[in-house]
């Protein structure tokens, strides 16, 4: 895996102390537990509708989560549980939303694909491919205009690189030098089709960076510390008026596109390689142990994570469905839905 095509690697520029390393590990472990639990609940028929898991892709969200300022903005896709979680949306709120419970983050009005918590800068999960890319540019424009040095981070998949909004947003962000970081999580499959089969260039985001006057950045999205460092560098650029960054982080989703998809179009050996040898969570665990991190500290995080996810699951399960009346609220700013007098 290339760390950065143009020798702009930020590796080593943002050293992680033990606290940061443990934060990174903890975020990944908690995202993993959350995604696995979402899967298990789906298999128990407790999740309404569909859900798109980012299992295997946790290092990217965790790297950014550990790097971002509290008042920064994130925009993500329907595969967005990891990104919302690292900003501070609780496991209970996410699982509750998946299960359509009143305790859910959106009380069931949004569902798995739309988790949002504006109080935490988690500015929404968007289920139309590419649409959130210009919206993230708008939040960055707002931060630029208000002079707050906030940055917007926009996560999207490899499939997004072939839709028009990708091009419009990147050009727009580049010409206005907007403080936005675009992060392509290249999990190598747009829905059910390999991205390489439908894209004119090998690296769907990185190879297009030059079109927008941006540096081509291609990183191993399963390397948690590299993701943190890459995030720090891009956020520094954004805050210092350097404009947007486009990052392609190569990763792999352990499961199919959505829970309706067993992912059979992928060769078994490829799936096995990514799950067994390139899974970001054990990779990072081993790296920390090799570097001398006491095992007890990681084990404590693991145990706490298990406790958290069980508690969140019980909380979510114990909540009932939302009350009927909220179906008719919050179309308008006055809280109502009236369109006539």
């Amino acid at each position, binding site marked *: 895996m290339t760390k950065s095509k143009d020798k702009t690697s930020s590796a080593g520029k943002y050293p992680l102390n033990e606290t940061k390393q443990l934060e990174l590990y903890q975020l990944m472990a908690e995202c993993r537990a959350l995604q696995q639990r979402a899967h298990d609940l789906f298999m128990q028929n407790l999740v309404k509708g569909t859900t798109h898991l980012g299992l295997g892709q946790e290092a990217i969200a965790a790297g950014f989560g550990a790097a971002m300022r509290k008042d920064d903005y994130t925009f993500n896709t329907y595969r967005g549980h990891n990104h919302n979680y690292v900003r501070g949306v609780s496991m209970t709120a996410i699982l509750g939303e998946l299960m359509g419970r009143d305790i859910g983050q959106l009380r069931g009005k949004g569902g798995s694909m739309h988790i949002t918590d504006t109080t935490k800068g988690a500015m929404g999960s968007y289920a139309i491919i590419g*649409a959130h890319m210009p919206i993230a540019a708008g*939040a960055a424009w707002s931060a630029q205009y208000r002079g707050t040095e906030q940055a*917007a981070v926009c996560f999207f998949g490899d499939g997004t690189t072939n839709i028009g909004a990708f091009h419009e947003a990147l050009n*727009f962000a580049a010409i206005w030098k907007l403080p936005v970081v675009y992060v392509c999580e290249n999990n190598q499959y747009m829905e059910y089709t390999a991205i390489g089969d439908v894209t004119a260039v090998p690296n769907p985001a990185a190879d297009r960076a030059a079109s927008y006057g941006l540096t081509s950045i291609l990183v191993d999205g399963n390397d948690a510390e590299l993701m943190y460092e890459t995030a720090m560098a891009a956020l520094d650029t954004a805050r210092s008026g350097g404009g947007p960054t486009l990052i392609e982080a190569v990763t792999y989703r352990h499961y199919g596109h959505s829970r309706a998809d067993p992912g059979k179009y992928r060769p078994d050996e490829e799936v096995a390689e990514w799950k067994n040898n390139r899974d970001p969570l054990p990779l990072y665990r081993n790296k920390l142990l090799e570097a001398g991190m006491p095992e007890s500290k990681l084990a404590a995080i693991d145990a706490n994570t298990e406790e958290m996810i069980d508690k969140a699951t019980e909380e979510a399960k114990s909540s009932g469905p939302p009350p009927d009346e909220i179906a008719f609220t*919050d179309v308008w*700013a006055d809280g109502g839905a*009236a369109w006539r*007098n």
Partner: protein
Amino acid sequence: MAQLSYRDAVAAAIAQEMRRDKNVLFLGEDVAAAGGVFKATVGLLDEFGPLRVRDTPISEQAILGAAMGAAMTGLKPIAEIMFSDFFAVCWDIVVNEIAKARYMSNGQHECPLVIRSANGGGARFGAQHSQSIENWAMAVPGIKVVAPSNAADVKGLLAASIQDPDPVLFFEQKSMYGLKCDVPEGDYIIPLGQANIAREGSDVTIVALAAMVPKALKAAEVLQEKHGLSCEVIDPRCLVPLDTKSILESVSKTGRLVTVEENPRLCGWGAEIASIVGEECFWNLDAPITRITTPHIPLASVDVLEDLMIPSVDRIVSVVSEMD
């Protein structure tokens, strides 16, 4: 009162609100340095500077996405989509994102923005630059829809739209940009959702919007003079929120309803009004509700053909005079 053109009223309203609130920004294609292709935003760049009045690339999704992102994070953007036909290339941002953000987020997202656009026919621009799409907008829950018929309403309604906490699609009828009327000076606001009784009458209610309003008023004069019919002309001004109360009160009085719509026939806004009046005012009706619309075909470019399609004064006179 000063005489202002419809186009100058656009700039006047934007300037009024930008002076009032530094968080009001304006973006679009050729809107700043060029003052807009219809010259409706001349002078704004000079007064408010390039940080608040910004030219964009030809990127309608980026324009509306940027407006939405800014609106969600504390600003009050005004975006221009040069021709309303171009909404077709960015309708996703309007329909799936802007319109639904508040609801889907359980009330968390704010989306106070205005999208202005030149709408409608009469300028001989052909089928891709002449459509009346206010009925597309009306069909989507979560956006307000405004379509003024004169310069005074442009100023008051555009200012109200900018102040409104919800997303507003503001349709300017492009054949009317040069039309002048008395416009109140100073800060001027017309609340959204209040129809204007443009002419009082007792025999027939004619509901007309935007460029159809002056045609309906002219037809009403002819109908009075030549046929002795007293027409009440109602300009809803907003399709969402819709002032059904004024329409129902008028039809209760006159017993007859004609809608005059520039949009093509199927699912035009007049059909919704006809449905409401049919359900809620049926026993006061003395004649079938009649809709006058552009036929359900794309608009031709050349004047002689376009004029056959868009409802005319003659067509309104003819239809109304032949009602039972």
